[in-house]
């Protein structure tokens, strides 16, 4: 398998809060589609803060499904359809060619136009324009990547999505949000020393993040609006309040509470705070995740002595065991298409990896191959093509890593400072 090492261009890394994640692609598919992203035309006087074509090329490369052709190999750099000579690109074996132009718009923001050509069939396959504010150059670039990706693969792109994660610097915990490529990290909530923040979870509309904070000296669940930062405390029961997971309709959270003696799964209505107990067993029931239809909840339980994954149908309340392979299976997360779930799977050698199990067949596929075998906290991209998880690098530092659901493409997102963990991939943003 090809090993590509690739460092994302670092930008805007001035503020101390911007502890950027750096992306290193560690492997890719054997036969990625060659695509030429011609440098974006710009008629302004001052140089642009961001290179749109570089961001797009990096996005597509990171997906593992594309091989952007290096700029230095390009024989020409057309910025208009009339300047495109297919011959130039056939020589480079480019299957697709993308040209783009950015200009200032009337509102002081930017206007981006881009066109994509199918080199072999010599025809235009995409012609789009988009406007953004002054600080949205990266958003424009990610939009362009999404459109290109979708036109060629038929799958919706996730380059415009976000990831939330927890960063730990000494005793301080920070709930962060960054672009899916790790750029532009923003602080959502910073803890006082020694008061952990845990388990961020996006609402299905992407407007809210639920998480656990120890700020009242015991774990409590909060829901924070991403855009405004306004917060609402959902639970503060005695004992454990943990692992919030949004229902598909965004109305409820499945949570773990130990208020009645030992950890059980509950659902809580976000508006009315109405509480409903789902499981009832003296063993530990934890880490809920809803099925796509919202009718059942998967969870981890050690009611059979070893932690395994169970599914409980809300109507009947009857739990049924789902995992049977291996001594330890935990932290189920149902995939966006609802066909299966990813989870932490411990192998015979005691290493923890992320695996996928299909509901229908029960077949398991192990997706991660890390040496350390300390993979945890899986989260799936909204298009179901990629999975992100937390692990440790060789130096023992907490990093985020990603792998495609066919296990062919992997990349790491080590943080420049501190440990990062508990990634949560946002839904599509509209």
């Amino acid at each position: 398998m090809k090993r590509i090492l690739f460092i994302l261009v670092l930008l805007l890394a001035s503020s101390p809060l911007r502890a950027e994640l750096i992306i290193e692609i560690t492997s890719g598919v054997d036969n990625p589609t060659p695509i030429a992203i011609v440098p974006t035309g710009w008629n302004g006087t001052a140089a642009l803060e961001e290179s749109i074509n570089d961001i797009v090329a990096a996005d597509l490369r990171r997906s593992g499904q594309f091989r952007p052709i290096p700029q230095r190999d390009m024989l020409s750099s057309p910025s208009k359809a009339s300047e495109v000579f297919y011959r130039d690109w056939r020589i480079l074996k480019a299957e697709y060619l993308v040209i783009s132009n950015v200009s200032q718009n009337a509102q002081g923001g930017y206007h981006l136009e881009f066109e994509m050509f199918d080199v072999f069939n010599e025809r235009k396959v995409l012609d789009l324009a988009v406007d953004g504010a002054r600080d949205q150059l990266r958003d424009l670039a990610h939009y362009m990547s999404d459109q290109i990706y979708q036109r060629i693969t038929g799958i919706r792109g996730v380059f415009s999505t976000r990831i939330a994660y927890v960063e730990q610097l000494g005793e301080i915990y920070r709930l962060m949000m960054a672009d899916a490529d790790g750029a532009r990290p923003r602080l959502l909530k910073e803890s006082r020393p020694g008061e952990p923040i845990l388990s961020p979870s996006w609402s299905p509309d992407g407007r809210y993040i639920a998480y656990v904070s120890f700020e009242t000296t015991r774990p409590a669940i909060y829901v924070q609006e991403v855009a405004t930062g306004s917060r609402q405390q959902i639970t503060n029961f005695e004992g454990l309040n943990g692992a919030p997971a949004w229902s598909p309709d965004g109305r409820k959270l499945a949570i773990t509470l130990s208020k009645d003696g030992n950890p059980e799964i509950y659902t809580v209505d976000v508006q009315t705070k109405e509480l409903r107990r789902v499981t009832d067993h003296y063993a530990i029931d934890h880490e809920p995740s809803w099925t796509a239809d919202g009718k059942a909840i998967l969870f981890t339980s050690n009611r059979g002595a070893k932690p395994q994954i169970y599914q409980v149908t809300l109507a009947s309340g009857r739990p049924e065991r789902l995992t049977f392979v291996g001594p330890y299976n935990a932290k189920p997360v149902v995939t966006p298409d609802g066909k299966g779930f990813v989870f932490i799977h411990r192998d015979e050698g005691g290493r923890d990896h992320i695996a996928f199990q299909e509901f229908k067949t029960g077949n398991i596929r192990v997706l991660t191959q890390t040496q350390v075998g300390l993979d945890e906290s899986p989260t799936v991209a909204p298009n179901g093509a990629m999975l992100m998880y937390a692990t440790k690098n060789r130096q023992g530092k907490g990093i985020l890593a990603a792998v495609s659901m066919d296990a062919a493409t992997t990349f790491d997102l080590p943080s420049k400072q501190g440990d990062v963990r508990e990634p949560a991939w946002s839904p599509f943003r509209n």
Partner: protein
Amino acid sequence: MKCPLITAAGLAAVLFLPLTASAEQLQLAQVEVIESSPIRAIGQPRATANNDRNPNAATAGNGSSDMMGELFYQLQILQQEVQTLRGQVEEQAYQLQQLKQQRMDDYVDLDRRISELSRSGSAATSAAPASGSANANGNIGTTAQAPAAPAGNAADSEFASYSAAVDLATKQQAFDQAITALNQHLRQYPDGRYAANAHYWLGQIYFVQGKMEEARQAFTRVVEGYPDHNKAPEARYKLGQVYFRLGDQARARTLLEKVANSNSDVAPLARNFLQQNFR
């Protein structure tokens, strides 16, 4: 009953320790969290949570609390025992179900092979059915369902005529002669039991020859004339490809999606083709 464990740290420990059983796991986030939490000061020593025998009999005192301690200890052991047994029952139920499924699959497989044997035994007198070698597109299985006990000479000669025509195409690659022979067969047995197969083979041959319009007509005959025939899904799949080559993307897609959503043998091929050629 007295339950000495209800503090946040104690519960957090109860929660995570059994779930993260191995030593290396202790370095993970959750446990660090517990340790760095200020609650620890008021919390219980987390060892109480572990499954190992650590009776809280440590809280020794007068006789009745001794008894309570002993009872609590017994209860813990019983719970643990039940959990272990439950795990075993779940696993055995799963294995049983797997075995049942396996047995069923084996039986179906055996049954299929036996009935194939008995069928080829009775058909041995007539020419053995051409074991359809896949052509350029690799999606052709066996030529046709073996004739179910050909009754009488009429059936025999019908099969012979069909089989000879197909052999021309598959074994000798004599496509033009095969077309003639297949058309001849269709004239002779317009409603014969191999009519659908013959149309299908005509389509295949035209397709290989690049005669898309002729291929379209032939496959359409199968799809529309014999919608329930076992060659119909394959014909629909090929017809989709024909339309694709003819540039009628919309119709190609409709057909291929129909095949892709069916549970026929060629559904994966159709899905594959859709994935590669449509977005």
